[in-house]
């Protein structure tokens, strides 16, 4: 099991994740072909990484009329079976994160498969804006620790 965690606060907007993804999956450099995207709101100095959250109750799986989308029980990843997929694209609007795309040339939909447990985007994200965590409990524990230390610093408790 594992989970991708996106944190816009840590994102610098460099888009290395997009390029690393399209290079690994398609051997080209193309943000359009990337499974993860960074929305750059330059006007406000904000960068937001957006990608598949591999939902527990995934709307894409629910909407798929031929059961081409499924949850991989070993990794928790939401995957597409391209042999079954009929290209109806119902899953694209169903996804709240716009994480499924359609390639009009190859005539197929594509999405993040978490690189089967070793996500390439995470490898290139040096600030940790995209993390792959094995245990969400561990992730939240670390986050609680960081916020507690910050509060402690602010109140002067223990100093």
């Amino acid at each position, binding site marked *: 099991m594992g989970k991708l965690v996106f944190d816009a606060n840590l994102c610098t907007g*460099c888009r290395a994740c997009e390029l690393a993804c399209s290079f690994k999956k398609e051997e*080209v*450099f*193309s943000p359009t072909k990337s499974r993860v995207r960074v929305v750059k709101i330059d*006007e406000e100095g904000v960068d937001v990484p957006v990608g598949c959250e591999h939902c527990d109750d995934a709307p894409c799986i629910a909407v798929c009329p031929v059961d081409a989308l499924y949850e991989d029980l070993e990794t928790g990843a939401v995957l597409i079976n391209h042999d079954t997929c009929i290209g109806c694209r119902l899953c694209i609007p169903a996804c709240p994160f716009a994480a499924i795309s359609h390639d009009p040339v190859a005539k197929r939909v594509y999405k993040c498969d978490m690189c089967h447990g070793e996500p390439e985007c995470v490898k290139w994200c040096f600030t940790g804006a995209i993390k792959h965590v094995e245990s969400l409990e561990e992730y939240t524990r670390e986050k609680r620790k960081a916020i507690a230390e910050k509060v402690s610093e602010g109140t002067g408790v223990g100093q």
Partner: protein
Amino acid sequence: MTFNLGGYAGKELHIDLTRGKITKVELSEADCKRFIGGRGMDAKTLFDSVSPGTNPLGPGNVVCLSTGPIAGLLGPTTGRVNVASKSPLTGIYGNANAGTNFGPEIKYAGYDRIVVRGRAKKPVYISIEDDDVQIRDAKHLWGEGVFETNYRLQEEHNGYDTKVAAIGPAAEKGVLYGSVIFDFWDAAGRSGVGSVIASKNLKAIAATGTGELKVADIDRYREVIEDGWKGILEDPGFKTGEHSSLGTLVCVGWGNAQGWLATKNFTEGDFDGADGISGEEFRDKYSTKDTPLPGGRACMSCPNRCKRFGRVEKGKYAGTKGNIEFEGVGAFGSKCGVSDMEAVFHAYMLANDYGMDCISCGNTIAFFMELFEKGILSKKDTGGLDLKFGNGDAMVEMVHRIGNKQGKLGELGALGTKRAARKIGKGAQKYETTIKGMETIVCDPRASKGFGFGYAVGSRGSDHLRAHPVFEMLRIPEDVGKEIFGSSESVTLRTYGGKVNMVVWHENIGAISDSMGTCRFMHASYYAGYPIPEMLAKSKGGKDTHSIKYHEWISAATGMELDYYGMLEAGARIVNLERAINVRFGIRRKDDTLPRRFIEEPLTSGAAKGQTFPEDRLNKMIDHYYRIRGWDAKTGLQKKRKLIDSGLEDVAEDLGKRKLLAKK
């Protein structure tokens, strides 16, 4: 013949605004091999298309916006875009460069370069959506600021996916140092390239690209960029996190301590208000990201993220926001003696919104301030402004006046420091510090001899981003300096030994950096550039090292085999081509010099107190530099043999016909 190199998109967009004609032309493989891309290819286009008599603001001038073979690929920084034209500010070769997402975007749309000629009858902008390229009416945008233009074009096209290059009202009104601003905040500022674009009645380019870029050798490419990426992450300078968390403003404290932070129009060598405009001040009070790391925003595929984004929440400059960089802060800050960060930040963003080069604008205001203090300009001349050093509000008001060309000083300021000095007279020229008509940056050449020498010979006039010899500022071991530049003095600021070699090397490698589409900060100027990590490792007893090897990077991406020395030769070729352009525009040895202030007036304060840049020293260095470049010591003209040897036979032939070659 089909274009067959990797990395490149493979096409150029030629736009003739006079005829309203758009042509898509295949990139020339021969040009790629000789000049790589970006800055190199732009020089080739200018050499071929702009004759010496061309009016920079007339339809005969050409403006190029170009990327290089690695732009838009994964790798240690791939977001630079180069803009080139004959400069209206200096009358010679003009060039500016920015770190953006626009450059990669035009490549995803299918074009490595955009070459614009002629002049539209009425205001237009160019929209690029992959194959669909149109010249469109820009009546609704003309007169608008850069930010509003960028915002509207994103609204009218594909939202955040649309990347925009825009010029502002200052350039429309004929300020001679108009900039081009990409993606709201990223300026290609120098040389007035934005003014050239405005003179063509071209307001903006809005681009969206959905295509893809391929490299020649996938496995090798991955190996090369992984090594380069590791090189950065392991670099001791990068590891301090200073540059990432403070942005380029890290240089404020650094420059002040080292004695080169130009202060009060170069009258002083340290600034007592430096803390007020420091990187720490900006990070702690205005930065919108509260984590010290990562803190900044990044250009395409860059681990360094040196763009600090901030916002002023209250006070009279509330609402000011944007990416801030060192040169603009130096120009409006220490050069003007202003220590109020909010005034400096505001002036900086105004200059961007008007579309003016922060360096030329701030420098010109600082020059006016000195004239005001010396009594050469009166209150009548300033329209009542108390234009003393340190008056931030007056400085902000001057930015408005110049941007609008309003009043006497607004009109004069729009001409840049050199022309304004000439018009003012009364001995004003004594206080101006331009070289070849270009305002000097915020690093004082008396305190940093390598930088100073670089200004004297730089192809776009007084500027740091031709050579950028930062090795004299970093703590590089002496043995490394000796091995690469022939003198252990080369790694010390106030000494001259090895500095000519250092400037030549940095100019050559910098030309490659600008031509391939990557950033100087990520190569031997700062981090991890081959062969520095290797030499540092050797100096410290040897360990496995990783580095950014430009020659390998270009080779793996494009399939053109280039070794380290071949790459340096290509860099030298680009520098020589730019010299040839400048020779045709009348540049000779007499122009390769420093302003009298730096030669005659010792610095009065700071770590470099008492320093000048002595003329005899400068002359000897120029002799040495010319010998290496193959230029004639007396005239500064190029030698035929040397041009041919460096692969510029066509240039030698052209200069020969014009009788512009050195005699022997």
